[in-house]
Every structure is written in C-alpha cells, then in structure tokens.
C-alpha cells in the first residue's frame, strides 16, 4: 500500500511487535497514520486508494475521519506507543536532564519562514537546563540553520523518515525514544507529534515561542490546534493533564494484541 506506511519505520516497529521480521514488514492492507494530525489521520495530500482501510491512532481521529467521509478507519494506536511499551525505561540509562526542543519544521518542498535567532533567545531564556535541538533532516542538512542552533546547544537529528520505501531509517523511532528519555522536558513552538511522543515518554511538555509559518500556510488550522488543546500549550502546562491528553491522542488503551494486529493489518498469523 502507500509508502507512507514505512515512514519513520512504523511498519517495521509493528512487524517486530507482531513477531514478524522487522527488516521486511509485509504489505499493510491499508494506510497507517504516520503523524499526529487534526484531520482524518491521513497526511495532507496522501493519494488515497478508495475503499482502503485507514489505521488511525485515536478514537477521536476515527470519529473525525468518519465525519470527513472516511468511514473505513480502525483505531490501532500509534506505533510509537507499541515501541514505548516494548522498550521499558531502564533507570540505569541515567538521570533525565534539560530539554529537547523541536523547532517547527516543514516537509520536503516546504519552507518555514521565521526568525530562528529570536526563537533561540526565547528558548534559552525559558528553559531551566541545557537544550538539545532536534532538527528535521531538511534543516539538519542545511549548514546555515544547523550552525545557528549549534551555537545555542547540542543539535541532533533522529534520521530520515524515508521516501518511496528508500532510505527509510527503520531505527528513527528507537532513536527518538532514547533521546526523549534522556530529557526532563520536551518543547516546540507548535503542538506536534514530537510533543505527544515526549509527553508519553515521561517529559514535561511545553509549546511556546514564535510558531513560525510555512510558505502559503493556512493559519486557521494552527489557531484551531491552540484552541482545542490548551492543556498542552504554554511554557509550563500541567504535566498530568498534558500526559492524559497525549496518551489519548496516541490511542492509549486501544493498542491491539499481536494476533489482533496481524489480522487487522492483513498480515500472516
């Protein structure tokens, strides 16, 4: 099915959970939601083969997908949660420290406009500890942008999500989880997948600073996100409430057993 199923190694994570070869996940009979979104679970512009199943993260997304004319959605929860549950946090990994900060990024072909320097000033003024900046591969490979952030802290990149099943970094989520578990806080200038992941991985979340804008972006959606999820916005939101929301958005309580997941995805028993 769609190559987006392999983004971030999602198909690989689910194959491993199902006891199948993670290096060669079978074809998924439908579309996997590959990022937290406020629409029908599919990424914007995903070419959808009519009549195919959509595997979404949360019941809320399923209801929304139904209302948007996508009735064939099944809630399976986020692959990241499957990974989180199968890789227990070991205290030997060391104390959590500082903040991992995800500056808002665009996807391939998109450009973010905004003042990175001013954002960094606000971050260093707000964050109590050292800051690790996690850049999207696009910005990470832009020496100019990377240098700007490197002056303010450690800079990392979790990898390349892959395109058309090529160069997929199957360990993307593993690396992201390991990084998140090293930090006390997770922050961004936009509420995004990474904030959800960090929050459920035990970080206190924060969303603040210039949200920046993509070229030609419809800002109504960004405003809606701030309105709908106020409990995840601000420099110091209530971690308990934020965690409950993030868990719900990732489909906590809805994860399928390996046998159920295999049958649902159309994988061999």
């Amino acid at each position: 099915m769609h190559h987006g199923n392999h983004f971030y190694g999602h198909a690989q994570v689910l194959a491993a959970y199902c006891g199948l070869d993670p290096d060669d996940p079978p074809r998924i009979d439908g579309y996997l939601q590959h990022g937290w979104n406020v629409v029908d679970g599919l990424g914007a512009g995903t070419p959808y083969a009519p009549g195919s199943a959509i595997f979404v993260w949360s019941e809320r997304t399923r209801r929304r997908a139904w209302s948007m004319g996508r009735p064939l959605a099944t809630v399976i929860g986020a692959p990241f949660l499957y990974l989180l549950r199968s890789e227990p946090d070991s205290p030997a990994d060391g104390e959590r420290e500082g903040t991992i900060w995800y500056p808002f990024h665009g996807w391939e072909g998109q450009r973010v406009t905004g003042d990175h320097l001013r954002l960094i000033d606000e971050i260093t003024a707000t964050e109590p500890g050292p800051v690790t900046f996690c850049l999207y591969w696009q910005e990470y490979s832009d020496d100019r942008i990377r240098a700007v952030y490197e002056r303010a802290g450690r800079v990392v990149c979790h990898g390349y999500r892959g395109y058309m099943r090529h160069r997929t970094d199957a360990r993307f989520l593993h690396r992201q989880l390991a990084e998140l578990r090293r930090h006390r806080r997770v922050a961004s200038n936009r509420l995004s997948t990474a904030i959800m992941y960090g929050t459920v991985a035990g970080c206190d979340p924060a969303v603040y600073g210039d949200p920046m804008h993509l070229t030609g972006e419809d800002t109504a959606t960004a405003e809606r996100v701030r309105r709908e999820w106020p409990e995840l916005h601000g420099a110091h939101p209530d971690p308990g409430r934020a965690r409950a929301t993030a868990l719900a958005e990732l489909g906590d309580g809805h994860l399928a057993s390996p046998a159920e997941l295999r049958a649902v995805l159309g994988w061999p028993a």
Partner: protein
Amino acid sequence: MIGGEMPEYAEELPPAGGPLYRTLAERLPTGVRVLVAGPHEDALVRAVADRREVTLLLRSAPDAARVDARDVRVLCGTLSKVTDTGRYDVVVALDGTGRLHSPEGSALDWAESVRVLKRVLRPGGTLLLAVENELGVHRLVDPGTPTAARGGGAWSPLGEFGSAPGRPDRLAAVLGAEGLPVTGLAAVWPLPEHPTLLATPETLRYGPLDALAALASAAAAPAYRKRSVLSDPRRLAAAAVRRGLGAELAPAWLAVAQLAARPGQAAPLAPALAAGPGGSISEVVGGPDGAWLRRVLHGPEELNGPLPSGRLLEERLLTAALRHDLPGLRRLLTGWMAELPTVPAGNVLVDGDRYARLDPSAPDSEDALAWFAYTLATGGYHHPWPAVTDVARLTDVLAGAAGLTTRPAPPPASFDEFPDVRRQHEEQLDAVRRRLADAEDRIRFCEAELGKREAELGRAKTQIAAFSGSLGYRAAKAGLGIARMARNRIRSRGRT
C-alpha cells in the same frame, strides 16, 4: 355439527399450542367440564382432556373429523351457533377469537365473541383467553401485510383495524366490564400461537428486565430460525423488554378471567414461565430478599437456583462495537473466551466480570466466536473494523481481540440458523454497491499509479542504457556494429 361449519376448509395456519400452554392446561382443576374453543394442538387438547370432560369447538369440518383425542366431544360450526349456556367450568380460547367464526352467518366482533364465551361459562367459571397484539413485535417484523392476507381463512382480514383491546391493562379493564374480572394476565412471547415465554406485566415492569430481555431474545431465536423478517426479532424483543415495553409489544396477551370471581379457583400465573430449547420448563419467581429465582418444572436440575443477573453478552458486545469501545469490546471477548468459549453469545449473561449461562440446557457450539463474527459482519452493525468484510478474517480479528493465541475454529460453511432479515438485505446491497464503486475507483487509482511508475521505469531504462559501460566501450560497440553491417553487405553482394 352445530351449524355454520366449513365443510371444505382445513385450518391453514398453525393452531395454538406449545409447552407453556400445555403446562397451564395441566394446572387446571381436574374433574371439570372444559370447552376448548378454536384450533389447538392435539397435545394440548390431550393435556386438557386428562381427567377432565372436554368439548372441542372447531369451525373446520375436515379438522373436526381428524380429532384423535378419545373422550372428546366435538362441536363443529361457528361460535354464534353454540348454545351450551352455563355448561362449562373452564373455557380455553388460547387461539383467540378470530378462528371461531365461519363465512356462514354474520361475523361477531371481538367483544361479541367474548360475550358468547362468557355465556357458556358456569358462574365462577374460568376463561383462558389469548388476544393477539396487532402491534406486537411479531407484526413489526412481519414482511407480510395482514390486511392483504390471501389465505382461505382471511375473508375479512382486519389486522390492526380490529376491535380487540390494544394493551394488556385495557384487556383487563374490558373483560372486567364484561363481568369477567381478570385474575391473571401474561404477555406472550415470541409468537402468539406458540409461546415459550410468559411474563406478567408487573414482572415486565419491575422484574429482572435484563434477564427477561435475554430470555425474550433466546425465545425468539428458534421461533424465527431461517424465517424471513423485516428486522431481527431477537433484538427487537430484547430491546422492548429491557426498555420496559415487554408487556405492550408482546405478540399476544393471555388473560385468565372468572365469571364472578371465587377465590382459589383461578390457575395462578407465575411472574414468568419459560420453555428452553431442550424441552425444559422453568418458572421465575421472586425470592425472599428481592432476588429472582428459577424453579424447574421439567428438565435439568441445574436450572434451579438464582436467575443469573446481568445482560445478554451478545447485546453487550454489539453495544461496545457500536460505541467503538475497543477496550470494552476486548474485555468482553476476553472474558467470554476465558469463561465460556463454546457457549453462543446469545446464551451468556454478563454481570461485571461474571459470565453465566442463561440456559444451561441449551447446546454448545465450537464455533461460537465465528457466529458472533457473522452477526457483526452481516447484522447491520457499525464496528471497529469496517474494512474487514470477510467473516473468516473478522473471526481472526475477534480471536486476537479476545487474547487467543491460537486461531479459532473456522466459520461454518453457511450461517443459516438466524432469521433472514430483509433490512439486512438492503444494507448488504448498499454495502456491495459501495464496495463496487470503491473497487472501480481503486482500479482507476491504480492505473494512474501504474502509469506514473511506467513513466519512471521508462526514464530509468533510458538512463541505464545511456550509462551502461564506459565511453570507450560504447564507441567500440558502435564501431563493431558498423563493421558487422559492412561485412553483411559485402557478403550479400558476393552471393549475387
């Protein structure tokens, strides 16, 4: 022959009967004189005739000729011709009054028929009268139109335009006003002529409604096996009872009335009386501390004891599926498969974490899960796996959701034990249309994708051709080609 008989006509529809009516008949006082008015099953007539003097009133001459109960007097003719005034201690009219009349003479309406039945009773006599509910669940699911019936007995079919009372309390009031005070009243499920569940209106209002709803659904299942219906009578019966409408929507009511009541003469009606599929008969009675008990009259002793509490598992599963409550659905499936994996979901009551058999005498099924998958897939229900339309695959999904690690028993080759629900036909037709439209769209989508990939492949082949080998290699290859052409030309010249 008393007049007004039908010489050529034999009743076309089944007579009143069944195990519960037989049980009631057995409870009548012995040594009394009984009129059985209208078509009743032979077994029922025999049960009444045991130690009682029975007269049978039938309008059909062929049916009257076929009566094979000994010591039974048969009156053949129409009700208005009966002249046995004050003769009977008991009148049994469990088929109602509709089939007491013939085309000869003027037809009596419901109230007039009751008056005739009253006239033949002795003072203090008892009338057992069934009244069909024209708005009962059996009518609501009936694909036929009663007012357009074509049978030989339907010369003036009134259906819901008839004059019989439309509620059990009105039935009691009307009989009371006729001088026949009602001493017992019960709602009849699932079919007027063949009840397997009788429950008093009080029980259906204040009793154990969840268990009674389960009993009503279980009663409807065998009665409607393979029968064509508009919507599923099992769900409708259960919903009616659970929502407190079990008396109002029952297919019929049974009234026990007395001509000038004398205490101790009436056949007492239990709060509920149920017949199981294996022939068991049990009654539901109130216990000392508000609990409800089941007492076996016929059948296995294991039915004795407290009536299981909780709701029918099948309904709980469907509710969870409709709510898209995946955690709840998984919990129910897991509990079911752990506790009673071979008991069909329609025979399990769930109360919290407790799973109990509704009827321990009902048969088990190795593929209970597959049957539920079939219900979920074809019964007209939303569920969390809408893209899974194949029953075998849905069974695997449910098995996974139930925490089973081994594959469940495969579904049977055909699922023809359930009612044939026409509303589901519509839904299935719509689903097929949707899937066909989706499939056509998907083919177009795939062709467009294929076109893109072919263009990519073409470009890649050109690139491969252009970049395969070094420049020297390509020059030598081109030179070799020219040389080969020149040689061929020389050779061809030499041959001419």
